[in-house]
């Protein structure tokens, strides 16, 4: 994980589901351009936040031994804007997980109101791509993201 786009986990049930939150602030510079006078969180970045929430859930399920890569956005439906000052809640659930891949469903909400539904697929890349080799070290789950796990209410 090279950059962190969620603020913390508030629930974590190993191998099943996780809930993270992100505080959205006008200090995020891209909001000044997206859009001038009407700042809303880009939907692509909502997907990124869900990819991190679900990706860490998937990674933890295999003790962070796999390189977990976002492979497919199965569904991304948006129902409302996310604006500066909002705290969004990201709930991710593992639907299926095998040695090679995992499939997750997720919903983003703000003050109890549904903002988006985002379903994803992740690949454990060492087990795919016909034996193609990747660097030994786990470049996905580096130390930087571990701060996120601190303070999470683990219920594994």
């Amino acid at each position: 994980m090279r950059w962190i786009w969620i603020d913390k986990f508030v629930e974590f049930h190993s191998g099943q589901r996780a809930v993270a939150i992100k505080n959205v602030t006008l200090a995020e510079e891209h909001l000044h351009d997206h859009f001038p006078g009407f700042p809303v969180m880009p939907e692509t970045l909502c997907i990124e936040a869900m990819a991190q929430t679900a990706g860490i859930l998937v990674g933890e399920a295999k003790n962070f031994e796999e390189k977990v890569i976002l492979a497919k956005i199965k569904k991304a439906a948006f129902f409302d804007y996310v604006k500066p000052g909002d705290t969004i809640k990201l709930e991710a659930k593992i639907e299926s997980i095998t040695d090679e891949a995992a499939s997750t469903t997720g919903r983003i909400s703000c003050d109890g109101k549904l903002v988006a539904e985002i379903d994803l697929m992740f690949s454990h890349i060492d087990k795919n791509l016909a034996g193609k080799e990747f660097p030994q070290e786990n470049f996905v789950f580096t130390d930087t993201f571990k701060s996120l796990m601190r303070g999470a209410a683990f219920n594994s």
Partner: protein
Amino acid sequence: MAMSRDEIFGEVQEVLVDALGVDDDEVTSGATLMGDLGAESIDFLDIVFRLEKAFGIKIPREELFPAESLMNNPEFVNNGKLTEIGLGELREKMPHTDLAGFENDPDINKLGDLFTVGAIVNYVEGKLNSA
């Protein structure tokens, strides 16, 4: 509860429409997953997961789409074509697929054409009947 072949086809069709973003009428029995429906490797896993859910069955990955393990084995592939041993292996692993046309020219680039909608229906039907 036994499902008829038409019912199975209907479910498989829905799975493929959702997984690949194609239209109902593109998902014909003879349509190939890669050539006609534009499936990529990750889609095969997506399809496996969705089929498992739709039919309540377990699908070992190698069973439905066994091509990958074949292609990486020099005993099975020579000069871009499947060897006799490779073909034998394929026949054994894909009993739900009609290999007659492929056997005449077992070019591995054409392996993708073997994965048709009909082959998936056959596979699911076999799986449900043996359950």
